[in-house]
C-alpha cells in the first residue's frame, strides 16, 4: 500500500511544471545557454508544426506535400525542441526508440506493398477509399496513403536517430571531456 498522494507533495517551485509531455518540461540543461524566447516559441510552434506535418502528409496526393515532406517537418519540430530544451526536452515527448520508429515505418510501407498481393492484385497496387464522415461529409483517399504514412514514420525516426547520435551523443561526449557545449 502506498500512501495516498498529498496535494502538497509537489514541491513549491514545481507547481507550474507542465503536466503534458508535448509541452517543454521547463527543466533546463545545466542552467546555462538557455533562451527563454526560444523556449516560448517552441511551446507554440512544436504542436503547430506537428499538425502542419500531418496536413502535408494527408494533402500530399492533391498538392505539394506527402510523407517525405511531412516527415521532415515533424522531424524539424523535434529538432527545434531539442535546440530549445536539449536532450531532456526531447526525451519528455518521444519515448519510442528511433530504431523502432524506423523499423515500423519500413514495415508499414512494405506491408502496404504486400497487402494487395493477399487480395489477389499486383504488388503495390492501390485503390480508392471513400467514406462519408459525420460533420465533414464525403472524403476520399488512396490506399497508397499508407505507404506515405510509412515514409512519414521512417523519416521522423531517421531525424530522431540523427538527434540521438549527433546531437545528444556529442553533447554527452563534450560533457564527459569537460568541455562546455
Amino acid at each position, binding site marked *: 500500500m502506498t500512501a495516498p498522494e498529498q496535494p502538497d507533495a509537489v514541491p513549491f517551485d514545481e507547481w507550474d511544471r507542465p503536466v503534458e509531455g508535448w509541452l517543454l518540461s521547463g527543466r533546463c540543461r545545466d542552467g546555462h545557454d538557455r533562451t527563454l524566447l526560444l523556449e516560448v516559441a517552441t511551446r507554440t510552434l512544436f504542436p503547430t508544426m506537428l499538425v502542419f506535418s500531418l496536413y502535408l502528409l494527408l494533402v*500530399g*496526393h*492533391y*498538392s*505539394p*506535400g*506527402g*510523407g*517525405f*515532406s511531412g516527415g*521532415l*517537418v515533424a*522531424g*524539424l519540430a523535434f*529538432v527545434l525542441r531539442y*535546440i530549445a530544451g536539449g536532450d531532456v526536452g526531447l526525451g519528455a515527448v518521444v519515448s519510442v*526508440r*528511433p*530504431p*523502432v520508429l*524506423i*523499423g515500423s*515505418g*519500413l514495415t508499414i*510501407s*512494405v506491408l502496404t*506493398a504486400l497487402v494487395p498481393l493477399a487480395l489477389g492484385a499486383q*504488388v*503495390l497496387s*492501390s485503390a*480508392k477509399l471513400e467514406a462519408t464522415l459525420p460533420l465533414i461529409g464525403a472524403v*476520399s483517399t*488512396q490506399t*497508397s*496513403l499508407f*505507404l*506515405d504514412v*510509412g*515514409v512519414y514514420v*521512417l*523519416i521522423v*525516426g*531517421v*531525424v530522431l*536517430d*540523427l538527434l*540521438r*547520435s*549527433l*546531437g545528444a*551523443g*556529442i553533447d*554527452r*561526449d*563534450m560533457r564527459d571531456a569537460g568541455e562546455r*557545449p
Partner: protein
Amino acid sequence: MLALVAAHLVVALLLPLVSARGHRLAFVTAAVLPALTLVWALANTGVALGAGVTESVAWAPTLGLELSFRLDALALAMIVLVSGLGALILVYSAGYFGPTSEEATRSAALVLTFAGVMLGLVLADDLLTLYVFWELTSITSYLLVGQRGDKRESRRAALQALLVTVLGGLSMLLGFVLLGEAAGTYRISEILALGRAGELQGGGMVPVALLLILLGAFTKSAQLPFHPWLPAAMVAPTPVSAYLHAASMVKAGVYLVARLSPGFADLAVWWVPIVVVGIGTMLIGGWRALAETDLKRVLAFGTVSQLGFLMVLLGAGGRVAALAGIGMLLAHGLFKAPLFMIVGAIDHATGTRDLRKLSGLRTSMPGLALAGVLAAASMAGLPPLLGFIGKETAFEAFIEEGGSRSWAIAIGLLVGSVLTAAYSARFVWGAFAAKAGKEPTPVHAPGPLLTVPVWLCVVGGLVLGLAAPVVDALAAGYADQYVPADAEEAGYHLALWHGPGLPLLFSAVALGGGLALHLQRKRVRKLAHRSPFSAQNGYENTVAGLERVAVVVTGRLQVGSLPAYLATILVVVVLFLAPAAIAAGVWPGDQVFYHEIAQVPLGIAVVVAAVAVVRARRRFTAVLLVGVIGYGVGGLFVVDGAPDLALAQFLVETLSLVAFVFVLRRLPSHFTEQPSPRRSQLFKAALATVGGIVVAGVAVVLSGARVGPASASDDFVALAPDGAGAENIVAAIIVDFRALDTVGEIGVLFVAAAGVASLVLATRYDRGRASGQSSPPHEKDVLG
C-alpha cells in the same frame, strides 16, 4: 520432387524444437524423411530405369527460369547414397552425440538440410537448378565443418572448404551459362541429347564451358590440386565427416561428371583432364594415406584417392567403365560410410583415433572389428564384396578396350589399387591389431545405435556383392546411354565371377602388392612423409598472396584523403563526359539567358555563395554558404513551378544545416591551420573550374537533346487523375507509379541512419574502452 526437397528443409527448420526435448529424438526424427525418400525412390525404380520421372515448376517464367527435376538411374543410385546412408548416419548420430552435446542441435538440423539440398542436386534436371543446390551444399558444409567456430582449426578448415568449392562453383556457373547459351536450353537431358548427337552449336564456346564445369567438379570432389580441403575438413564431428566426405558432398563433383559424360565423353577436352587429374588424385591420395597416423585422416586421403578413381571411371566414357563407375559409386558409399562410423565408435570407446595408440581392439571389440574388416576388404577389392565387382569391372573396361590410352589408364588404376589395398590393410591393422609391446587399449563398449548402422552398411555391401544383378540393372540403366563399341561390350554385366583373365589377375596383383606394401609399412611411411611440394602450402600461399595484393591495392587506392578522392572523381568525370559531349552533343540553338526575371538574382546569389565557399577558411562559414546555395536552388525550383521539389529541398537543406552544426561542435573551427601551398591550390582551382565548366556544359547539351516531354511523362500526366486518383503528379509518381523505388529509397534511408548511428556510437565506444571505463550510457545508446 520439389515437395520432397522442400520437406527436408522445412523439417530441418523445425528440428531445433524437437531437439529441445532430446537430441536423440531429434536425430531419429531427422532420419525419417531421408528413409521415406529412399522408399519413394525405390518404389519408382521401374520408371526411373526406363523413361525417368520428370517434374518442372516455373520459377521465374519471364526469365525462362524453372526448377526441373528428373529421377533416372544415376539419380536413383545417388539417392541410395544420399538418403539411404543419410538416414543411417542420422541414426548413428543419435548414438554419437551425447545428450549434453552442444553440437547436436545444430548438426541434426544441418545434416537434414544437407540431405535435402543434396537430394535437390542429384534430382536437378536444369543447369541453374543444379547450381543453386550445388552452392547450398557448399554453404551447409561450411556450417557443418565450422561447427561453433570457436576453434581456429575448425574455422580454417571450414573456410578452406568454402573458398575452394565456391571458387569451382563460380567457374562452373560460368560454364553452365556458356553451355546453356550454346545449346539454347538449360535442361540437362536436352543438352545431353544434343551432345550425343554432336549437334551442339556454339563453336569454341563448348570446350571452354566444359573446362570451367570440370573445374567446379574437381574442386568439389577434392581432385588434384584442390584435394587438401577434404582431409582438413576432418575436424568436423565424425558423423558429419561420414556423411559429407563419404556419402554425399564430395560425390557431387563425381556425380556432375557422371551426369554430363554421356553427352561429352568423346571430346578430348572432357576426358583428358578427367583421366589425368583423376589418376593423379588416385595415386597421391593413396600414397598420402600411407603416411597418416590419424585413422580419420587415413580414410580421408583414401576418399580422395577413391574420388580420383570414380572420376576416371565415370568420365572416360564407355559402357563398361560406366557400369564399373556406378558399381564403385555404390560400393564406396557402402564401405567408406561404415569405416568412418567405425572410427567414430572407436573414438567413442577409447578416446583416441591415433593408430599408434590403439592396440588389441580385435579382441575387445570383435563385432566392430569384423565389420571393419569386411568394409576394408570391400575397399581393397576382395571378393565377394561389391568393391571387388566394381574394381574388376574397371580393369575389364580398360583392358578390353585396348590401345595405349586404355593401357595407360589400366596401369594407373592398378597402381592406385595397390595403394588402396595397402591403406585398407593399414586401416585394419591400425584400428584393430594387437601391436607388439603395447598394452590393449581400455574400451567401453559402444551402444547399438553406434554399431547397428555400421552393420547395415557392411551387410548392404556384402548382399549387393552377392546379388550383383541388382546392381547391374541399376548401373545398366545409366551405362546404356553410351553406345557400346561391340557386341561383347554391349553384353557385359556386373557379376561376381567372370572367369579367369587379365582383370582377375589385376585384382590379385592389387591385393598382393597392397599387402606387400603394408608389410614394409615403416619404410613406406618414411618415404610417404617426404614430399617435394605440398598442395596445402600452395593453398595457404595463394590465400596469403591474395591478401597481400589486397593490402597493396587498398593502400594505393584508399589513401584516406578526401581531396584525393574528390580529385579522382572529378578527373574521371572530366575525362569521360567532356569528349562525349563534344563529340556527340549539340549546343541548343534557342538558348536564352533566363526564362523568368526572378532567376537572375537567385542565380547570382548561388554563384556568389559558391565562390565564397571556396574562399571560406572557417567551417561554419562554409556550411552556411552551402546552405545559401541549397536555398537558392530551392528558389529556382519555385520559380520554375516545382513546388514539391522546392518544399523537399528547403526541408532537407534546413535539416542538413542543423546536422552540420551539430557535428561542427566537435571539429576545429578552421579547415587548415595555415593556407595550403600555392601549387596545390592552383591545381585544385584548375580542376574545379574545368569540372564545373564540363558539368554545366553537359547539362546544357543534354537539355538541348530533349525535343519534347518524354512519353513516360505524358503517360504519367494522363494517368495520374484516374489511375492514381491524384491531382499532384509528383505524388502520384512517388507513391503509385514508382512506388517500388520509394520503398527502396526509404530502405536506403534506414541503412544510412543505422550507419550514422553505428559510426558515432562506435567511436565513442572505442574512446570509452581506451580510457578504461565501462560505458553504461553507451550500452543504452546501442540498445536505443
